[in-house]
């Protein structure tokens, strides 16, 4: 395929047989599913057979980078993964910071890679242009995700794209993640364990082929305009100085400046929100720590484990090094502590000296989880499995959980939020389980009670049709906007971003209206497209992933809200007029399905919707395994 933006091929690697196969990227596939998340969705639907064990050789790791990745479109380094997740058996995607990996993958000649099988020894996959090699990883197996990156840098030099896992992935901890060059998290729900199950420690890439665009003049006009707008962005200077804390001031800025060592950017990013911090005081003085954002090193403070920056940053480093999802790990430890307190787990089961929410105890428990030692082995299976064993009589301290993962933002969630926005609503309805995916594209993200006109303006920029806006702004149960109906477009807009390869942060996607995205895509690829068609492609890919999850047995029963959200403390609606009751939340769920053209009773796509999206084959495939779409 000669279209601009695309590298032109999909790489298939079988770690069991050692077979490496390069498949040309089909232009119809690219036009229909765009790239990144979209083509991942099609590959996942086609290649991940229903009912397989996520940790078996049959599962696939699919990683892709969209057509903008490798160009200088601002913040266009994003990579996406898709696999069957061990934590809950869902077909789950994840968008991650691309750092160097995304452009090096594309420059090597690959838009997507599909990895299956299981190596007979620890390996890493090397993609240096046409030199694709399965290499022995004996020297890095057992090391942390960051140490692995350092070792591979020293072996191969830089620039180098690296995706690696820590010990928790090796030991099949079901909520382990993969990390892009230490600072980009990818694969909430256990991508790290899928790597581990394949004996795959890392993927490295370095490519020299280059990425072309189809219409250089048209491209430059659009991109230059974007750069000018970004230069004028009032938040830019503050972001450069304070990083993400500029927008989320979780700690005093002077405290941060004392810890800041350097900022890191994904390729082409104007914000540079990745961090190198240095601990200046206490027993870890002098330790240098990499992080996806300074605010993400504060989890141990949030849990009351410590009030010391050095201690919380060190624990964040432990979590990242092991490759653990920090919220899952800490919330599981909190839950285990409650089980012990209520006599549901004995001291003998837990092992002396129990779980204390203080730094040394937590550090030791993170090590136990990552290495599956003692009761850490039980917790390593995640909430889904833990609740099967210990789910009776826990009403008082039930975890805030959906689909086997923590619904981490909400009224009783670890990140306390008292508004019921697309972010909180999305925790329940995402096919993969709770994740941040829709938040960044929603006008409700990081705002509070914005005027309806302002929200409408943002919906225009997202490409939400006027008739849908009318439905969104039709009052219901005292709510002035319908978060359930809005969720569809918030998700779709985010997945356009994931298809193209730009960053999901609100500070970035504010510059990318649906029209700008379409114009850039047309200029880059030479495939003329409208904003409406882009949104339709996103809807198509989303429905295909949904269908892959329907095949796995997911339906309306799984799209539930945590019971704890309907206790004494309740969310308010976005304009703080009413408390959100359980009936109201599930009423919004009905509206979400209705807006999506899905069956309200079962929560799955209707035949009409699938046919409208050109996904007729989903209906035929389903019939063969006894599933009938309504």
């Amino acid at each position, binding site marked *: 395929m000669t279209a601009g933006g695309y590298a032109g091929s999909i790489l298939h690697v079988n770690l069991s047989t050692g077979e490496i196969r390069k498949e040309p990227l089909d232009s119809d596939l690219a036009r229909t599913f765009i790239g990144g998340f979209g083509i991942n969705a099609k590959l996942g639907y086609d290649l991940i057979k229903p009912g397989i064990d996520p940790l078996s050789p049959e599962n696939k790791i699919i990683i892709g980078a969209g057509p903008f990745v490798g160009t200088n479109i601002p913040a266009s380094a994003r990579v996406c993964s898709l696999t069957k997740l061990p934590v809950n058996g869902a077909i789950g995607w994840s968008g991650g910071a691309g750092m160097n990996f995304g452009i090096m993958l594309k420059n090597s000649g690959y838009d997507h890679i599909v990895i299956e099988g299981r190596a007979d020894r620890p390996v890493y996959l090397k993609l240096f242009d046409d030199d694709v090699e399965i290499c022995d990883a004996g020297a890095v197996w057992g090391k942390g995700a960051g140490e692995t990156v350092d070792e591979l840098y020293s072996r191969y030099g830089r620039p180098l794209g690296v995706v690696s896992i820590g010990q928790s992935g090796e030991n099949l901890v079901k909520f382990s993640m993969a990390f892009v060059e230490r600072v980009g998290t990818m694969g909430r729900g256990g991508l790290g364990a899928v790597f581990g199950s394949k004996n795959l420690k890392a993927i490295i890439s370095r490519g020299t082929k280059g990425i072309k665009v189809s219409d*250089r003049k048209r491209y430059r006009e659009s991109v230059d305009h974007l750069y000018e707008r970004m*230069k004028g962005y009032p938040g830019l200077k503050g972001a450069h100085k304070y990083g993400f804390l500029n927008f989320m001031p979780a700690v005093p800025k002077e405290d941060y400046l004392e810890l800041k060592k*350097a900022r890191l950017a994904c*390729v082409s990013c*104007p914000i540079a929100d990745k961090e190198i911090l240095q601990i200046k005081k206490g027993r870890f003085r002098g330790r240098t720590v990499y992080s996806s954002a300074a605010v993400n090193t504060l989890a141990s403070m949030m849990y009351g484990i410590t009030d010391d920056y050095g201690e919380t940053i060190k624990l964040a480093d432990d979590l990242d090094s092991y490759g653990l999802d920090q919220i899952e790990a800490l919330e599981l430890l909190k839950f285990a502590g409650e089980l012990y307190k209520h006599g549901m787990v004995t001291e003998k089961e837990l092992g002396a000296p129990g779980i204390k929410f203080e730094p040394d105890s937590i550090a030791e428990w993170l090590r136990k989880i990552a290495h599956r030692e003692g009761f850490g082995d039980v917790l390593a299976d995640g909430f889904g499995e833990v609740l099967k064993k210990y789910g009776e009589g826990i009403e008082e301290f039930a975890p805030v959980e959906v689909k086997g993962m923590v619904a981490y933002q909400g009224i009783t969630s670890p990140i306390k939020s008292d508004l019921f926005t697309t972010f909180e609503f999305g925790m329940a309805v995402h096919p993969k389980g709770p994740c941040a995916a829709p938040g960044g594209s929603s006008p409700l993200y990081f705002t509070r009670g914005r005027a309806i006109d302002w929200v409408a303006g943002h919906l225009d920029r997202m490409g939400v049709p006027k008739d849908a806006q009318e439905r969104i702004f039709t009052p219901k149960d005292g709510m002035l906007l319908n978060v359930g109906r809005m969720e569809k477009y918030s998700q779709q807009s985010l997945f356009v971003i994931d298809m193209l390869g730009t960053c999901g942060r609100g500070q970035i996607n504010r510059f990318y209206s649906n029209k700008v995205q379409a114009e850039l895509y047309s200029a880059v690829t030479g495939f003329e497209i409208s904003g409406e068609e882009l949104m339709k492609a996103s809807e198509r890919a989303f429905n295909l992933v949904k269908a892959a999850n329907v095949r796995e047995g997911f339906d309306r029963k799984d799209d539930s809200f945590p019971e704890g959200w309907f206790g004494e403390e309740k969310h308010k609606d976005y304009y703080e007029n009413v408390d959100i009751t359980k009936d109201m939340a599930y009423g919004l769920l009905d509206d979400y399905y209705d807006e999506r053209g899905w069956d309200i009773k079962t929560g799955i796509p209707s035949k009409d919707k699938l046919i409208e999206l050109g996904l007729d084959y989903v209906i035929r495939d389903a019939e063969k395994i006894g599933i009938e779409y309504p």
Partner: protein
Amino acid sequence: MKFEIRTYPMRCVGCLNCQLICSFSFEKVFNVFKARIMIDRVDGNSKIGFTDKCTSCGICADYCLYGALEKVEEAIE
């Protein structure tokens, strides 16, 4: 037109925008290995250099959003 390009490596965050626009301008392809500006970034420290092919056109500085490259207004030629 040629410019003096001043470098401030402490401000560099490794976004490689300079290399991308340089290769695109001169080679019509985005490829950091074909850029005439070299960024060597290790553990948050950057070294900035230029190859012999650099024409001092200053487009790298135009696209640097971090102030790590500065195009001095006065043309040197």
